[in-house]
């Protein structure tokens, strides 16, 4: 469209304020972007509804509001919608006076929309205008993704009629398309029949039209002549009580259709005349367009807030689900940390192996007297101490593994249970593809590897620390293996939270280990060694469980629920409202002082600062 067109064809309001139109288009495009972003992926109560609303709104913005706002001077589009079997196609054919769309007795009939326009108006209905998703074709088709364009000189220039599919048949595709087409209409030509006029589905549509103050004309079709009075009265009352009392009501009597499938010209004369009058009167046409468009924009802005609320709920829900998963796994990390540090790991198997390893008290004595290394070596040779160190290592490994495995399972179960308690979580779990209530399948293997890696880390630490102490008797006596076992034992009694009778056993073992290490490395070094080993263990446990936790958090990440979206939507809707109010104020000022161009321009300049 060029600026000249706009000036020539009308749109008086907008011509006066091209800036306002541009600003509005920008705001609406931003609103569309924000709405598009809000996927509402979680199954929260009411989300279904809001998701449908969002799709509807995006469609309406793309199909109608934005293109319409950019080409306000385009012909008025009247969409003929209504129930299946109410006679929409017959009506359109009769209005045009020729058979442009196929009526039939088998329901539903029309599947693909047909647009009839004056040949001169063709340029307004190109692919990039209204309803850009529908492919334009010029012959009859049954493809619901196509829009058949029929130029007809019978149509008045400045007005086009679109035959939409039904709104209530078993074909869901028809219903969806019809709703989309009606959302893109400047004027609804709503067709119902004597048998249908009290049906629920059409009234749901009419209520929506009334909500957004779309221009509606009702056609009561297929009415038996004897019932005209009763039904019109009743229908008029129904319309009034539902906020549509200003809508014109046309009655088409049930009559013989011609061979061509057309109603007698007299039956549709009234409608045809009304449409022609509308087409001829540019002011009236423009005000119909403006009314429907304003209503649509107002409704969009209003409905955005409820979608934004739904989006906020989604953000909250995602945060809660994430917290649940995190809490479950944090608890596991803490629990493993405690169980491995309070010395209880030193009981049972580990303790038995450790005692076998250090022998019975003689070790202590030998440490104190510092003379025992030859005897130690002899004993080693006889008892095979290195193997015993190995056995402590194995016992430690299996103890730690059992702990880690169980807590990972318990955490998975906790996280799953808390997710399962919400509908949204249930659906995420169902679509997860694996059973998240269990630790992942290779977790045991990974836990084993992690424990073994830690043990070899400890070994490495002892080896590095002892590099220059290789020659000391103690080091040689116990070797790297023995000392690293002692270090593990010290690590497990780290918090020394052992009580009562336990202190004697576990604490004793730890003290023994500590003495042994101190004798070799000195106490400062032992403290730092133990600290390092402890941190390393905690880090690797956290890594293990983080990988498990990610199975949950990744699910949430793929939802791409951004916390900023709701605010962005609200801001866009507010902006649209602001612009709307501004232009309404200007319009009222214009009505109040309908003088000439110059004063109004200056008035606007006066408003600007």
């Amino acid at each position: 469209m060029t600026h000249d067109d706009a000036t020539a064809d009308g749109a008086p309001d907008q011509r006066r304020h091209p800036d306002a139109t541009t600003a509005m288009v920008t705001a609406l495009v931003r609103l569309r972007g924000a709405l598009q972003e809000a996927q509402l992926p979680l199954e929260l109560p009411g989300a279904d509804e809001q998701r449908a609303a969002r799709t509807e709104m995006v469609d309406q913005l793309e199909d109608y509001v934005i293109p319409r706002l950019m080409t306000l001077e385009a012909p008025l589009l009247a969409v003929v919608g209504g129930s299946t079997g109410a006679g929409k196609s017959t009506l359109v054919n009769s209005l045009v006076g020729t058979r442009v769309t196929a009526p039939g007795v088998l329901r539903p009939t029309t599947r693909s929309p047909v647009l009839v326009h004056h040949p001169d108006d063709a340029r307004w209905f190109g692919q990039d205008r209204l309803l850009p998703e529908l492919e334009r074709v010029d012959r009859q088709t049954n493809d619901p993704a196509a829009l058949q364009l029929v130029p007809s000189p019978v149509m008045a220039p400045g007005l086009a009629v679109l035959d939409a599919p039904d709104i209530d048949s078993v074909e869901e595709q028809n219903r969806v398309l019809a709703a989309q087409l009606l959302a893109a209409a400047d004027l609804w030509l709503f067709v119902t029949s004597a048998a249908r006029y009290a049906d629920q589905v059409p009234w749901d549509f009419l209520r929506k039209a009334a909500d957004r103050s779309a221009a509606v004309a009702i056609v009561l079709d297929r009415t038996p002549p004897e019932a005209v009075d009763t039904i019109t009265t009743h229908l008029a009352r129904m319309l009034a009580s539902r906020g549509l009392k200003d809508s014109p009501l046309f009655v088409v009597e049930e009559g013989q259709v011609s061979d061509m499938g057309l109603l007698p010209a007299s039956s549709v004369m009234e409608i045809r005349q009304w449409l022609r009058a509308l087409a001829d009167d540019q002011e009236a046409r423009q005000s119909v367009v403006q009314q429907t468009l304003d209503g649509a924009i107002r409704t969009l802005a209003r409905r955005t807030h409820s979608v934004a609320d739904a989006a906020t709920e989604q953000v909250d829900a995602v945060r809660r689900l994430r917290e649940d998963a995190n809490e479950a796994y944090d608890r596991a990390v803490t629990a493993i940390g405690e169980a491995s540090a309070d010395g209880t790991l030193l009981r049972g198997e580990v303790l038995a192996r450790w005692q076998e390893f250090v022998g019975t008290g003689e070790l202590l004595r030998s440490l104190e007297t510092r003379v025992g290394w030859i005897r130690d070596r002899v004993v080693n040779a006889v008892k095979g101490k290195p193997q015993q160190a190995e056995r402590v290592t194995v016992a430690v490994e299996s103890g730690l593994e059992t702990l880690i495995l169980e807590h990972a399972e318990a955490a998975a179960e906790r996280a799953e249970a808390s997710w399962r308690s919400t509908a949204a979580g249930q659906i995420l779990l169902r679509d997860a593809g694996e059973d998240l209530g269990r630790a992942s399948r290779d977790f045991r293997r990974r836990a084993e590897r992690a424990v073994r890696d830690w043990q070899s880390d400890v070994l490495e630490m002892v080896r590095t620390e002892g590099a220059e102490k290789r020659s000391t008797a103690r080091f040689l006596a116990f070797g790297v293996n023995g000392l690293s076992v002692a270090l593990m034992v010290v690590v497990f009694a780290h918090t020394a939270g052992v009580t009562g009778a336990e202190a004697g056993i576990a604490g004793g073992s730890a003290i023994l280990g500590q003495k042994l290490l101190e004798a070799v490395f000195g106490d400062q070094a032992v403290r730092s060694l133990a600290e390092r080993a402890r941190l390393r263990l905690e880090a690797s446990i956290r890594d293990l469980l983080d990988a498990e936790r990610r199975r949950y958090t990744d699910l949430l990440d793929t939802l791409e629920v951004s916390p900023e979206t709701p605010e962005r939507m609200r801001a866009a809707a507010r902006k649209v409202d602001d612009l709307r109010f501004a232009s309404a104020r200007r319009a009222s000022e214009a009505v109040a002082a309908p003088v000439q161009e110059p004063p109004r321009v200056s008035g606007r300049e006066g408003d600007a600062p």
Partner: protein
Amino acid sequence: MTSLLEGAKKLVTRSSDTGARVEGLERAAEAARGRVDDAVVDDAAAVAARASSRLKLSAEHTVVALGGATGSGKSSTFNALSGLELAAVGVRRPTTSWATAVVWGKQGAEELLEWLGIPARHQVTRDSMLSKADEDVEMRGVVLLDLPDHDSTEVSHHLEVERLVQLADMMVWVLDPQKYADAAIHDRFLKPLAGHKDVMLVVLNHIDTVPEDRRAGMVDDVRRLLEADGLGGVPVLPVSARHGWGIQELRSMIAKRVAEKKVTRSRLEADVRSAAHRLEAATGTGKVPTLSKERIAALDDAFADAAGVPTVVKAVADSTRMRANRATGWPVTAWFSRLKPDPLKRLHLDLGAVGKELTGTARTSVPQATGVQRARVDTEVRSLADQVGEGMAPAWASAVRAASVSRLPDLGDRLDRAVAATDLGATKIPAWAGLVRVLQYVLVLAAIVGAGWLALLALGSYARLPEPPTPEVGSFPLPTLLLLGGIGLGLLLALVCRWLVAMTARSRARAADKRLRDAISAVSAELVVQPIEAELASYAAVREGLAAALR
């Protein structure tokens, strides 16, 4: 009185095949409650309740409901069928606001009509009026209902239709050329009733408004849509109530079905079947699992570990060894062992009879289960529940899991009590040890006597007293023999007994181990196995009930 009557009615119900199905569904719903989605259970229970109440009512009558959209001509068809101008017919939509019933042969139908919730002012009895006999004989036993519409703006009408469609024995859907493809009827009524095609008829009314050459095509189109709803094979009858076309056929079709007296039952069976299928989908179809012995044994082991059984058993062995050694050892040295504490006492497991009386079953000082042991218990419980839950629907599997851990919080306490209450059999020293103790004292006495004797002799010879004759055994003087024999035999006996004691300690430890494990296995059975078995029993009940319902 009432209960007697109810009982009698129940007996009647039970005797029939349909009754058995209904009861099966009832049982299944009851057993499934709390384990699967409440909505499904409520639905099944409601279906069962509805069916059983229908079964108690007149079997002589068949409720036939005429349903359809507003303007389809339900009321016209109703009037044409009944031959009376009963229902208001009009162009103003919606016309009919409440259900009207006409009954052919009122006897026994009062209760049924009350159950249907049709007030007396909306009931008409056909046989009470003057009428031609033929038709009435044909329709005897029919309760014909004219329902309100299901698609108008009056929501109360929809609710009434939904209620009565659930109660009617047979449904006649009235469609018309304008509305036969409406989503309102197909999605809300026809599709969900796909299991009820035996008790359904479809009427295409207003056929007179369709050009003659298009009529057959339209009927085919209705058939096509019905097939898409899963209702292939349902008869479609083109009629025109206004002109009376096809009404006679419709009447005889209804009459024929009613005369077979099967309609009520097949409707109820279809209801029960579809409810049972829904319940089955929620509960799973796996067969009832059993608990494997190995898993339970592994569970018991884990419990025993957590209860510290190895510690206690070791203490029993040590304690037995210590006490018996004290009894059978050489008294002179054995006395020292009294200085060592008794391991059982240290665990507070050996308080003796008085102690137990004082404290009931006392708390032991057996070390609390460690993280690792507790983890092992949890793992075993989980794998037990896993093994059971395999093949069950997720809802049941998690119910089993929940049941398996429901009583674990008591675990520590219960295990402790089990250990404390078990007779370890280590309090008394064995009988033979008592004998040995006497023998040891005799030997010590002999040695003392021998030593004293020798001392006297030594004193005598030191005091230059004449040496009294000492009796000799063989060629050995008796006092020396007594002294050396007493010491030697005592030591030898102690040595031999040490070996015996070790054996006794081992066997006592084994016995204690067995007894402890038995006690613990009782705990594990109570805390874990029984709750799981209770779940399994309800699962079995559901499976059995559903099998009865779907037979």
